């Protein structure tokens, strides 16, 4: 396993021998490896870093994010969130600490951008009359407006989610995560459905937010180059096994990627940043 020396810093997450299998979940039958996905998974995420989670299809990337988000619980082992045992946290505690940005949401209901960003305030409701009927207070509108401003959404605040582009929908979900004022933002393939322009846009925004706010960001990505460019560290998974957790140059090496992805890849350097860059082999006719 490739592990770079970690500096002493606050840990956003510490996973201690976490096991997970699908036997308890609804998709037990679909799992290709006897239901067990993670076996004694141990690693930690430094507070304030931007961590990319990469790996082939079915390697457990999304499940890992769901474990961290508290959507599914480990069957053994412990997850510590900022030093607190996740098992002892309520859903609401989770909501205040960790924001989850799903891949894409399909809804038939015409919610407006503002409606959705406001929903991020749910974990902050108080035990009073206003919250009893599900209404927000001044501070909530403040945080919402700030989040919408941060992601350039004020101009489309009252548009329905059906009228906006996929990139704007993704920004809406990120704004909701910001309105949530959590310390960690988990993103499940935030650029999966986006054009190149929006991929770069979202990547840059996330990077800047993590730097400016000190947010811990964990991003699942299919796009190795985008992940390598914006992330401080990469976590490489294969069949639920942690192959490596280190800076991009240590992970994005041809021999590592080839053994995991089972295909030949070329790695050179980005002309501007010098970061590693992955290309597909040139022999398109096959050998």
């Amino acid at each position: 396993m490739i592990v770079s020396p970690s500096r002493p810093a606050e840990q956003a997450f510490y996973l201690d021998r976490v096991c997970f299998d699908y036997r308890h979940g609804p998709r037990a039958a679909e799992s290709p490896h006897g239901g067990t996905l993670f076996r004694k998974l141990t690693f930690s995420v430094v507070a304030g870093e931007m961590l990319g989670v990469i790996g082939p299809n079915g390697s457990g990337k999304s499940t890992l994010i769901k474990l961290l988000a508290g959507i599914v619980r480990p069957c053994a082992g412990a997850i510590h969130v900022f030093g607190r045992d996740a098992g002892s946290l309520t859903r609401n505690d989770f909501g205040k600490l960790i924001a989850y940005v799903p891949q894409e949401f399909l809804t038939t209901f015409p919610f407006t951008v503002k409606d959705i960003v406001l929903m991020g305030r749910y974990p902050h409701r108080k035990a009073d009359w206003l919250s009893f009927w599900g209404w927000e207070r001044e501070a909530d509108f403040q945080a919402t407006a700030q989040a919408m401003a941060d992601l350039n959404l004020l101009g489309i605040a009252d548009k329905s989610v059906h009228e906006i582009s996929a990139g704007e929908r993704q920004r809406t979900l990120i704004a909701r995560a910001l309105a949530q004022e959590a310390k960690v933002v988990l993103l499940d393939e935030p650029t999966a459905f986006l054009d190149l322009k929006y991929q770069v846009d979202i990547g840059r925004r996330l990077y800047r937010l993590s730097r400016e706010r000190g947010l811990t960001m964990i991003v699942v990505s299919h796009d190795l180059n985008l992940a390598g460019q914006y992330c401080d560290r990469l976590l490489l998974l294969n069949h639920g096994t942690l192959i490596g957790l280190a800076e991009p140059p240590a992970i994005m090496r041809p021999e590592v990627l080839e053994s995991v992805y089972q295909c030949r890849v070329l790695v050179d350097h980005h002309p501007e940043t010098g970061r590693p860059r992955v290309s597909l082999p040139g022999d398109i006719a096959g050998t």
Partner: protein
Amino acid sequence: MTGPHHLETAPSSSPAGEASPSDPLVTVLAVHHRLSRRWMAVMGILATVTVLLILLCLRVGSQPVDLIDMVHTFSHIIVPDRSQTDVEIGETILLYVRLPRVLLALLIGASLAVVGVALQALLRNPLADPYVLGISSGSALGASLALSIGVGHSLVQQATVPFWAFVGGIAAMAVVYRIALSGGRLPVHTLLLTGIIINAVLSAVILFVTSILDPTKLFRMMSWLMGNVPSPDFATLGILAAYAGVGILLLLRQAGNLNLLALGEESAMTLGVDVERVKKTVFVLAALLTGAAVSVSGMIGFVGMVVPHMLRMTIGADHRFLLPASALIGGCFLMISDTMARTLFAPSEIPVGIVTALIGGPIFIGLLMTHTARMNV
């Protein structure tokens, strides 16, 4: 400020265009005041419309009642007129026949529409409706069993009929939900098909039970299955008002939760919603309201689907608006449908379920087509 060209604003080009400190603050206040003022305005308008429609529906009928007479009649209730000894026939019709029936239609329509909204959010499907999902027929079975197996006419016994309807409804809902739930998801078509089958089976059971136990009531039972708003006595009206009032109020409280659930259970969970508890609460309340409505009026379809659909297009998807608005407009919709049912072919009446089905059916098909298109993007 973000101009009309916000789409083209590249992230690198204009840090000044974003997050300037004065902008959000102004927007905050604007958003806040707009939201609360908008709620007041929307509900005010809808409540006014409701009152006007009540008066209109009271006027229409085999014995038209003048607006002036109506005011007279109502003023007599408040200030009894001793000098007038003989009670006018119009006044009797208005007070003891038409008014209870109009109010009953209002309550039933409100209950069904609110249940529709809640189920749609929970199942993330705009086609959900207590009738389409087979909940109504479960309630109908519960109620008809309670009625056939000798729940008598005393008030206490009568008040328990909605309870048995509730039991039947919740059982039917559990069965439909279990069957349709595949791999943690609820495919639209499986859900609808299951509901339709349950509906067909339970209706057959109801008619079977009726023909065995009391064949003389078979015709009445069939018309009840089609949905009928009776002219209730004040006791029945009171019982239903209690059930509906409590149920609707408790559902209104779930508006914030329903907003989050409408966007997906996982995402709601990460925002702090206790998904399982909310689901149980909403299912129980939905069965309760459906049971109360069905035990009085039989199976009236499509109110819970048509009304929320129309409202979403006009006032948006926020359940804090949608739920109370649906209660008002659902009430109006059924009240008008019932007025049509009793006047269009007077002196004979048609079951109100026919009217709502004729209006709702085409809307249902249209909605099914757009929904399928949208979810397959």
